[in-house]
């Protein structure tokens, strides 16, 4: 059973379009991170959200943590070909020495 479900699994769009990726769970997370992974490389952290309802912006990327800290979304405005990659959400449950749980991933392809 996947603790963190991401949707959609695959997304192919044209450059300039907007998109939203969702990360959902029935569990509460103390924090949630978003990573981007390009082919042949390891994931790279984009953002960490901690507070329910928190919104963070990173240039054209907007991240939101749900009020109940069970879900998150990533919105990309005016997508560019450089945004292509695998987007992974990863949550940490509770406090103390807890490892991250990764979501199922969303593979984004931005066409020129």
């Amino acid at each position: 059973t996947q603790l963190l479900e991401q949707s959609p699994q695959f997304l192919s769009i044209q450059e300039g379009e907007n998109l939203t990726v969702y990360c959902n769970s029935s569990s509460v997370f103390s924090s949630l991170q978003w990573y981007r992974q390009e082919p042949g490389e390891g994931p790279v952290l984009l953002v960490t959200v901690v507070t329910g309802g928190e919104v963070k912006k990173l240039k054209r990327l907007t991240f939101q943590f749900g009020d109940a800290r069970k879900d998150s979304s990533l919105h990309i405005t005016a997508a560019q070909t450089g945004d292509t990659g695998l987007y992974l959400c990863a949550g940490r449950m509770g406090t103390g020495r807890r490892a991250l749980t990764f979501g199922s991933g969303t593979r984004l392809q931005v066409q020129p």
Partner: protein
Amino acid sequence: DAMVIQNPRYQVTQFGKPVTLSCSQTLNHNVMYWYQQKSSQAPKLLFHYYDKDFNNEADTPDNFQSRRPNTSFCFLDIRSPGLGDAAMYLCATSRVEGSNQPQHFGDGTRLSIL
């Protein structure tokens, strides 16, 4: 400057022949992780070290072992690789556990089994 370095980038081994993957870090982080990532799937945590304290995930097969001889190095040993073990193996580090610290990943070792 690479901070988490995995060697080799590509490894080919034979069915049942032991193989060791290595990871080194220049960040002086306390925690080192090993993940298995199969094609188009999320990374799956195999185990992690907090300093010398080893933490195995419940569903990690006994075929997978790890060693951390010092802060900088961590090894993944696969004793008898099967075809199902072909995957990308990712090493990651973080400064501490249980916090919002980011995990810093290496570029992975892609393991193929003949």
